[in-house]
């Protein structure tokens, strides 16, 4: 199950423009989430060629870090948020030292748990991806992109199969 970002959902020109730079989708690691199970969700941000966004740990304090903020529904607990490592990039404007950035694709994973009393049925975790993108000469306004992670909570003894191994099987975290 994957779900694309709602482009421009903030209603701002900034988010509309940035939606052309960063395309984000959400993924869930199980076909359905049994009560008492641990599972993962991911936001996959595809960044247009020639652009980058600051990593979660940017090289300067004044830079805006990429963050993912979930609003957890009843019965779902956040275990951890795992951000990918950035990579150093020397840009035309970073003459002193490389910037720590994401380019091409950044996958941010949420490790989650469904508690024993999690309500059964369709569940949504609203998340906000915050990022600020630049190219070699120009920076674009910071964006808070709202996304939704949707899945089904099922009884504890229900069998669920793993999904999207391409997203969830490799984990490089910082």
């Amino acid at each position, binding site marked *: 199950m994957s779900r694309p970002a709602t482009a421009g959902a903030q209603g701002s020109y900034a988010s509309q423009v940035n939606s*052309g730079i960063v395309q984000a989708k959400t993924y869930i690691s199980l076909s359905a989430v049994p009560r008492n199970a641990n599972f993962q969700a991911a936001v996959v941000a595809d960044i*247009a060629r*020639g652009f980058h966004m600051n990593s979660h740990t940017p090289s300067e304090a*004044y830079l805006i870090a990429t963050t993912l903020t979930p609003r957890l529904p009843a019965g779902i607990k956040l275990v951890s948020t795992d951000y990918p490592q950035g990579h150093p990039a020397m*840009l*035309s404007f970073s003459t002193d030292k490389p910037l720590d950035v994401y380019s091409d694709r950044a996958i941010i994973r949420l490790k989650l748990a469904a508690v024993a009393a999690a309500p059964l049925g369709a569940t949504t975790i609203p998340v906000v991806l915050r990022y600020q993108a630049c190219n070699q*000469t*120009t*920076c674009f306004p910071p964006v808070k992109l709202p996304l939704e992670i949707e899945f089904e909570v099922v009884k504890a003894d229900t069998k669920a199969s793993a999904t999207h191994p391409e997203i969830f099987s490799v984990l490089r975290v910082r």
Partner: protein
Amino acid sequence: MKRLLNVALFAAVICIATSNFSGCSGAPKQTPGTATASAGLGPAPDVTFKDLQGNNVTLASMKGKVVLLNFWATWCDPCHEEIPWMIQLQQKYADKGFTMLGAAMDDEGVKIVQPFVQKTQFDVQGHPTTMNYPIVIANDDIASKFGGLIGLPTSVMISRDGTMAKRYIGLVSEDTVEKEIRSLL
């Protein structure tokens, strides 16, 4: 800066964003690593900014001077790259009828811009120097009067008679800007 971009530029920017800055009819021709400049932009709009003390600052009050209006933000790294030579241009040409005017586009406004301006030291030929030119707070409405912003930095060169002589989108070189200042003084 929640509505930084003028809606008229929206399609052009999407085209830029998705086509690596080439092949978009009607959009600025640009490749990563280069900035764009355009000329002949008509009279500068009559806008009123607030400075960091809350006082009104009008562009009209600067008529008779060559003004480089620089839209920037504290979070914008390429903007920081330009600031040292903008400080130098202010030092060099302020008494010849030129002024820099830094228009900060931070959503948080004075709260974040003022401490940044007061505390941040830029390396100007080996000397730590704070910004020495007027800083005002700008927003999307103001930026839209200058044709809107695709991104930051964006600078607008305004001649002594109040005409917008040139607009630079993205990081631009000191030499390019200084030549333009000299030609207008």
